[in-house]
């Protein structure tokens, strides 16, 4: 067991990636993600790995494509505008079934936006990171400890399912310092017989491509990929449930916002309102099982996000009209407070009580 250390979210994530066997990092600096790249620049040479600051985000993601095709455990990181630039390369990776880890330390948008924390890239991460039929596995840490733990798992998930995995963090988690126990160094890795590592005249060529000009071939790759997605949906859903068993009002929040929602739940409980919290850890696959269970017993849902209302759509899709689903959020880099979240919970509680009378 490693000792507990005090680290910044971005740095804990970078160190955990190295311990997970990542020896290739290609990136480009952008606030509030820069410390990931800075830490990698410092550590990679000592680990015998590759750190390269590319000339752009587009170049970086294509280097990730190349390294992944050669079987490397590879990562890139950026913040919101940079992830948009990487979108094309991520789609190519999905099309070529290449594993890789992409970090998004989100900031406010759209456009250049700002540099304060945000969760406004939920749609982009879970629905449309790039063109074509594909999904990423999307993990949402909520503490510095989870910044380390989720990236550590992400490499294995990527290799197991041959898909890019995204860590959807935000500027708050990236910049905050918390105690963290770093994971042990990984020594066993998933074999990659598909990688292009040179045939040495002993086997047929491996081909990595996302180009399939015959529609029948292309459809077949899509169907195969979606069968894999079904397996991921069935086995990899993760969510944390807090006081949901007897909750009337179930909050749904991920990442940094879940910490605020948890405080609001505690305040609501102290005020006699039965509130609970579901914190999706996998945003894709969305934890529909946990939400569905809660929809049987709860009276209402409240989604809290640092955006204008994105994950709330997935909660509504899952709840499917069975119960009302409300939304509260702040955007542009403003962090919602527990007090204003509590005000919304109290209003919903009053509405529910009014409806009962």
């Amino acid at each position: 067991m490693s000792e507990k250390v005090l680290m910044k979210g971005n740095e804990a994530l970078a160190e955990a990636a190295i311990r997970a066997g990542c020896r290739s990092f290609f990136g480009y600096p952008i606030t509030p993600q820069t410390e990931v790249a800075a830490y990698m620049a410092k550590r990679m040479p000592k680990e015998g790995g590759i750190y390269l600051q590319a000339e752009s985000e587009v170049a970086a993601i294509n280097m990730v494509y190349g390294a992944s095709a050669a079987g490397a455990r590879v990562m890139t990181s950026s913040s919101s505008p940079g992830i948009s630039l990487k979108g094309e390369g991520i789609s190519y990776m999905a099309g070529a079934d290449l594993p890789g880890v992409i970090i998004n330390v989100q900031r406010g948008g759209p456009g250049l936006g700002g540099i304060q924390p945000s969760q406004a890239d939920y749609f982009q991460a879970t629905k449309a990171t790039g063109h074509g039929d594909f999904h990423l596995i999307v993990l949402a840490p909520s503490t510095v400890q989870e910044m380390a733990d989720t990236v550590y798992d992400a490499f294995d998930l990527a290799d197991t399912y041959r898909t890019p995995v995204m860590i959807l963090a935000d500027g708050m988690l990236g910049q905050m310092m918390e105690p963290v126990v770093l994971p042990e160094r990984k020594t066993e890795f998933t074999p990659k017989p598909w990688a292009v590592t040179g045939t040495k005249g002993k086997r047929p060529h491996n081909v990595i491509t996302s180009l399939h000009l015959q529609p029948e071939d292309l459809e077949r790759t899509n169907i195969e990929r979606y069968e894999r997605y079904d397996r991921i949906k069935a086995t990899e859903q993760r969510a944390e449930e807090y006081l949901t068993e007897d909750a009337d009002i179930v909050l749904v929040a991920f990442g940094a916002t879940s910490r605020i929602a948890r405080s609001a739940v505690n305040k609501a409980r102290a005020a006699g309102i039965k509130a609970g919290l579901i914190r999706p850890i996998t945003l894709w696959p969305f934890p529909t099982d946990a939400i569905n269970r809660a929809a049987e017993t709860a009276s209402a849902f409240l989604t809290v996000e640092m955006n204008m209302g994105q994950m709330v759509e997935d909660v509504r899709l899952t709840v499917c009209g069975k119960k009302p689903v409300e939304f509260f959020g702040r955007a542009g880099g403003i962090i919602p407070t527990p007090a204003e979240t509590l005000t919304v919970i109290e209003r919903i509680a009053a509405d529910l009580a009014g409806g009962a009378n």
Partner: protein
Amino acid sequence: MPRIIVDEHYCKGCSLCVEVCPRDCIALDPDKITDKGYHPAVLTDESLCTGCTNCALMCPEVAITVER
């Protein structure tokens, strides 16, 4: 006279120092933007600073030097 010096390479504008300053003489400089894009902390009134080091102890980036 006691005063503080903020290393703007490390300051991330979290404003924890602003919160803990008992003399209310630290603020985020609205006119300045660091290389990373943050408004850095700045001592607003040198005559108020007592060199108590609250800000330096609180700073998560160890970006503040106190002279007294």
